[in-house]
């Protein structure tokens, strides 16, 4: 199995409405040396009734209908690049490929008198480079799959997480990458709750796993790591903890281990609350959120206090490595995992991963990644990293953040939020980014 890179289109950023046709011109130039949009293989068309623009572009399909409709074998899927290649010398201009394609991905060019389609410019697409607003991006996360899929998933199949659970995805990605020489701690929360610590005398992992108290995760791991070191064995001491287990009940031991710079890889999966016990609020629950302990009624309108920023608190422990991450930006996460793993050999490494929860936050299970993405793109959940002694560094800077509603609107837990609360949340977001920028030496 191979996965392939692809061009992604974010219509909400597209400037077509402002008469921007940068991608179309760039494509026409690169492919035919002309500005005539006729030559462009990417076509952006206006959306209906004020909806965002739409895209006609070859999707480089996995089971391509254009290829099946081609009688001449001019079209083939290249197994190495995933591209649907078109061979001019074989093509007989019958246009049957245009019948197969439902996306307007291969079209007849009346000037050239043959069909033409996107070839991703040998992996460096001109349209993406030309797009001024970031609406087009070249997604290379397929390379992660190609690199990682041979590694073993160290959780057993059949964990009983909710449908669409982001945490399960984080757990599996993380442990697969960190590898088998690991001792894993999963304090009470969704992570052990879905079966990773096991039941009936078997574990839900293929590495040693234990279920510490909420209060002593980091200290137990610190002790275990010391013992392994004494035995001369290089084992990663890793925690997968919820935000409550990390930042509320477990904070004393976490802070202590960070202060001592113990060799631990501590991953906090932040779903903003105690979700598996019935969606109670935690210190990480954001202002205005509905939870069962911060209900919405005539007086109370969700959580009254702001969330604490655990990642920044950990950074202020000056430990080896601290970073935030999101599953909508997996490449970024994998890079940070690499760095955190290396840092955990030297001392304390802390990763804080935003983990929107379909069940507790009330959004459809198909929208998990979209919520993650909008969290980042509104700057609600900025992506950054910090290495001991250095500056904070934004790994996915958002220059023109979307208004925070774009994120809040996706989750039921913010449905009641009124104008005043909204303004307050937006202000908090702005302030948080301003503070982070100060740490990054940017203002």
């Amino acid at each position, binding site marked *: 199995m191979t996965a392939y890179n692809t061009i992604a289109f974010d219509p909400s950023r597209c400037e077509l409405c402002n008469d921007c046709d940068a991608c179309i011109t760039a494509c026409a130039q690169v492919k035919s040396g002309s500005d005539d949009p006729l030559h462009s293989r990417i076509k952006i068309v*206006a959306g209906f009734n004020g909806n965002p623009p739409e*895209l006609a572009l070859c999707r480089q399909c996995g089971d391509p209908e254009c290829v*099946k409709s081609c*009688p*001449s*074998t001019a079209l083939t899927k290249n197994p190495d690049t995933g591209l649907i290649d078109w061979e001019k010398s074989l093509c007989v201009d019958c246009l049957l490929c245009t019948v197969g*394609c*439902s996306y307007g991905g291969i079209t007849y060019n009346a000037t050239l008198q043959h069909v033409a389609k996107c070839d991703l410019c040998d992996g460096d697409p001109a349209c993406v480079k030309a797009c001024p607003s970031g609406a087009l991006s070249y997604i290379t996360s397929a390379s992660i799959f190609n690199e990682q899929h041979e590694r073993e998933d160290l959780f057993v199949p059949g964990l009983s997480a909710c449908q669409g659970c982001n945490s399960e995805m984080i757990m599996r990605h993380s442990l697969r990458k960190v590898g088998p020489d690991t001792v894993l701690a999963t304090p009470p929360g969704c992570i052990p709750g879905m079966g990773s610590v096991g039941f009936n005398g078997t574990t839900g992992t293929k590495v040693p796993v234990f279920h510490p108290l909420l209060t002593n995760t980091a200290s137990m791991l610190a002790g275990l790591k010391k013992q392994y070191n004494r035995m001369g064995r290089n084992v990663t001491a890793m925690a997968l903890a919820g935000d409550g287990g990390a930042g509320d009940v477990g904070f004393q031991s976490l802070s202590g281990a960070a202060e001592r710079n113990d060799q631990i890889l501590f991953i906090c999966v932040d779903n903003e609350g105690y979700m598996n016990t019935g969606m109670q609020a935690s210190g990480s629950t954001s202002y205005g959120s509905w939870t069962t302990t911060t209900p919405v009624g005539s007086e109370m309108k969700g959580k009254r206090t702001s969330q604490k920023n655990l990642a920044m608190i950990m950074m202020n422990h000056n430990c080896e490595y601290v970073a935030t991450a999101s599953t909508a930006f997996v490449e970024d996460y994998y890079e940070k995992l690499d760095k955190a793993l290396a840092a955990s050999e030297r001392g304390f490494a802390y990763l804080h991963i935003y983990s929107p929860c379909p069940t507790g936050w009330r959004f459809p299970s198909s929208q998990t990644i979209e919520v993650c993405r909008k969290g980042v793109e509104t700057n609600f959940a900025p992506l950054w990293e910090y290495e001991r002694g250095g500056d904070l560094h934004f790994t996915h800077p958002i220059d023109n953040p979307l208004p925070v509603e774009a994120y809040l609107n996706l989750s039921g837990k913010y449905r009641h939020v009124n104008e005043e609360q909204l303004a307050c949340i937006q202000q908090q977001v702005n302030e948080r980014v301003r503070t982070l920028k100060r740490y990054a030496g940017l203002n």
Partner: protein
Amino acid sequence: MNTTHYLVAGASHAGLEAVHRIRLVDGTSPITLVTRDAHAPYSPTILPYVVSGQSAPERVVLRPADYFLQHNITLISDNELVSIDETGKQVTLKSGDRWQYAKLLLATGADPIIPPIPGLSETPFHVLRTMQHAIDLRDHAGKAKRAVVLGAGLIGMHGAENLRHAGLDVTIVEMCDQVLPGYFDARAAALIEHAFNANGIRMLMGSRVVRVEPLGDGCRITLENGDSLEADLLLVATGVKPQLDYLKGTSVQVDQGILVDRRMRTDAPHIWAAGDVAQAADFYGEEKVMMGILPDAVTQGAVAAMDMTEDHALKPYIGGVPINTYTFFGQQAISVGQSLADASLEELTRVDEENGRYLKILLRENRLQGISSINQEMDAGIMWQLILRKVDLTPVKDAFIARPLETGRALMSSTWR
């Protein structure tokens, strides 16, 4: 006795798509693919270009040499299905070999119709359906000067144009009043005819041939009106029809082709049929129809395979929609869906005689029923989907009529996300 799980007869679009789909979900059960042809699998659609010399026979092979080995498919070429024992689940091939199957797919396509014209059987003539036909025709065309083509359907039109490209003097004789009936209305057909005339092809429309007879190395063709034509090359392209002798003694029901349901099942247990051999649901009406086009052969092959493998993702066949992307002398005529208006349809036509451009949109209750165009950019696949999905165009109707291309693209893109 040989045994196989899946037996597929016919190695063209329907059969090849079926084995591909089977292997997507069933990596291990034995598949045996039998084809009458001695050549490696190719598309009949490519044949006119083999005739003109544009396509070399060895470069149009639909699957790489190692495909069948790699996917553990036994390919038997130059052999033929001759009979089926439906209760014993066995077939007999022309070679005498017998195969036991669990599931049988008939994808044997169609063969040229030889019209009952007096004298034709005594006269040498060509048809065009197999690679061998194309090679014979190409070789003959290299020596011939005057060609007559009977029939102005797809095959006749493609054949005639390519014979013209090969330098012959070409005449088309067609019984109907127009070319490509069923795909284009009379006005569009007239534009196409005009291009043929302008390129030196004589078009005898509404003409019936009453007699054909050998004449020297060639033949003489007599028309109903008494005129006669002489030719040293005769191409008969008056339609196609499945050859179904192998069904004798089975309970498979046949009309013009093998009757199938929306899962491509025939009336006999464990036997499916797909492609040009099958007569399946019509998108527009109750009667089952013969489609005879490549994209539909692919679709039907896929549906059959998904049913044979009990693939839960199977969506029953929605029904055939006539589609034709016809290129001629550097021009493009595209037709998707119905081409003739009736009282229940709203018709919008734009003709630009000067530039040979033409567009016709047929709607029923603001849903697209058919669209045809000449020399207009058109995404046939998008139009096909708009028809199949019965997309309600009410909110975008004006835009669609003014700019079907862009509007279609936007509609499809929005359903994709």
